[in-house]
């Protein structure tokens, strides 16, 4: 009940934030402009629309998650609204969870809106519904949930600007860390290889949620993904929220 109340208030606050609508506007413009890009391209136009559309959903969704995740918790502390809230009979972890679910609900609504534009655009070309696109969007949503938990974690102990930089770095590292796999294959066995393997294990791998190439080019989808990606997303998110709650529980609100 308490988590729901905080989540619903967070949702109200987030959807009244103008920055969100600015990002939403740019996302919509990018998705629609993929139609123009498609006109200029030789080859399968639908592939371009799908490719640009899914990339926009992922990128703008991540930006929304980072902007909201890093600012909303910090705003509560900065504006001291947290004083009255934490003086009520709630656990600090309930506050973190309430904020998380409120943001997830907001992201869901935003992603839904962007997806509708994107799917309508694809439908106007193909006149069929590509179910794999919905699967790709679902995985993007899981990725955004994970990024939100990371942004909340950073905002528990640092300023919004630093938290945004950390979260953005996390997003970039998460999408580039697969490069280490290639490196591991090429390098000779030895301590350096072990070190890189450890780093690869520790770094987040957001490519687990990326099936854009397979969906756009109609390639077979990796079967392990359906179980592995949600489990990976769930435990990573849970891990971040647990650490965030732990930091928050010990914090003095001066």
């Amino acid at each position, binding site marked *: 009940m308490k988590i729901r109340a905080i989540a619903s*208030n967070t949702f109200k606050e987030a959807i009244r934030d103008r920055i969100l609508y600015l990002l939403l506007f740019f996302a919509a413009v990018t998705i629609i402009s993929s139609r123009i890009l498609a006109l200029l391209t030789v080859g399968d136009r639908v592939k371009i629309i799908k490719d640009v559309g899914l990339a926009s959903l992922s990128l703008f969704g991540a930006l929304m998650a980072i902007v909201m995740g890093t600012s909303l918790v910090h705003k509560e502390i900065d504006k001291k*609204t947290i*004083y*009255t809230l934490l*003086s*009520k*009979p709630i656990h600090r972890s309930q506050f973190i969870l309430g904020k998380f679910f409120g943001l997830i609900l907001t992201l869901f609504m935003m992603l839904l809106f962007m997806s509708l534009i994107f799917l309508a655009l694809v439908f106007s070309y193909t006149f069929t519904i590509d179910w794999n696109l919905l699967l790709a969007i679902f995985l993007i949503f899981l990725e955004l949930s994970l990024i939100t938990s990371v942004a909340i974690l950073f905002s528990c102990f640092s300023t919004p600007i630093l938290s945004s930089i950390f979260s953005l770095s996390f997003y970039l590292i998460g999408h580039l860390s697969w490069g280490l796999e290639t490196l591991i294959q090429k390098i000779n066995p030895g301590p350096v290889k072990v070190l890189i393997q450890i780093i690869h294990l520790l770094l987040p791998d957001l490519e687990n949620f990326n099936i854009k190439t397979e969906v756009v080019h109609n390639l077979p989808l990796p079967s392990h993904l359906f179980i592995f990606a949600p489990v990976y997303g769930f435990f990573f998110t849970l891990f971040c929220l647990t650490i965030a709650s732990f930091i928050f529980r010990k914090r*003095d609100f*001066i």
Partner: protein
Amino acid sequence: MAVALKIENLHKSFKVGFIPKKKKILKGISLEVEEGEIFGYLGPNGAGKTTTLKCVLGLIFPEKGSIEIFGKPHLSLQAKEKTGFLPENPYFYEYLTALEFLNFYGDLFFKRKKERKAKADELIQLVGLEQWADLQLRKFSRGMLQRIGLAQALINDPSLVLLDEPLGGLDPLGRKEIRDIIVKLKKEGKTVFLSSHILQDIEMICDRVAIIHNGQIINQGSLQNLVSEKILSTEITLSGVDTKELKGLGECFSIHGEKILLKVFEDNKIEKILALVQEKKGKIHSFIPRTETLEDLFVGMVKKR
């Protein structure tokens, strides 16, 4: 009488500066607030009043000491369920309307929408904001924010109400309204812990007070015990007598036309002044014996340290 709030040997320090250095804010605060009383927590700015309140509410963690609310540890949910809090300079969710705001806090306590709505309506009425119930808080004046803040502090019908500077920044009418609500809370059997540096208000409504200075309680007790009823001076407003004739009889404070305001410290001089006025066929306009006020006590104690 049961104890509503018990604080024992509370210590808290913060790290300040670029190279962190420990600064002691609370140095062993101990006090007890009895059930059903209005307890005033007095102190100059920076004395540690808000820090004490934040410790009680679990917003910051003391290094040493214990806090109990109605016999329960202050961080327990049972203790928090019995507590209401109004912070200093209330900061609230500006994008919410007054009703939405109360509804949000009500959501933390009431399962049924009907109950929440009834409580929110009752409190809006109590603090006199019926006309502005659907206005966003960003458009509220300072006094209105203070009133809606008080309403949220009462949303769970708390037995202990903690108010941090509830009268600060309000106009005289606003102060009177908040004072009246506080007295009403007492009549309903609630305990009020009131931190303030507006001494007149404290004096008017508090049963007992504690004075904090530099992180330590320097005096506490009931107002009757702390403030002596001994007459310190008498203020006499008179006319028809020349100021030169009053020389040596008292301190001449002000002269408005023929009226002279005189502050007299000794009883025998009062008799001399009265005789002089009679002799000169003058007039006594007012005669006010001044006993010690909380302000005298407060200023005296703080200056001594």
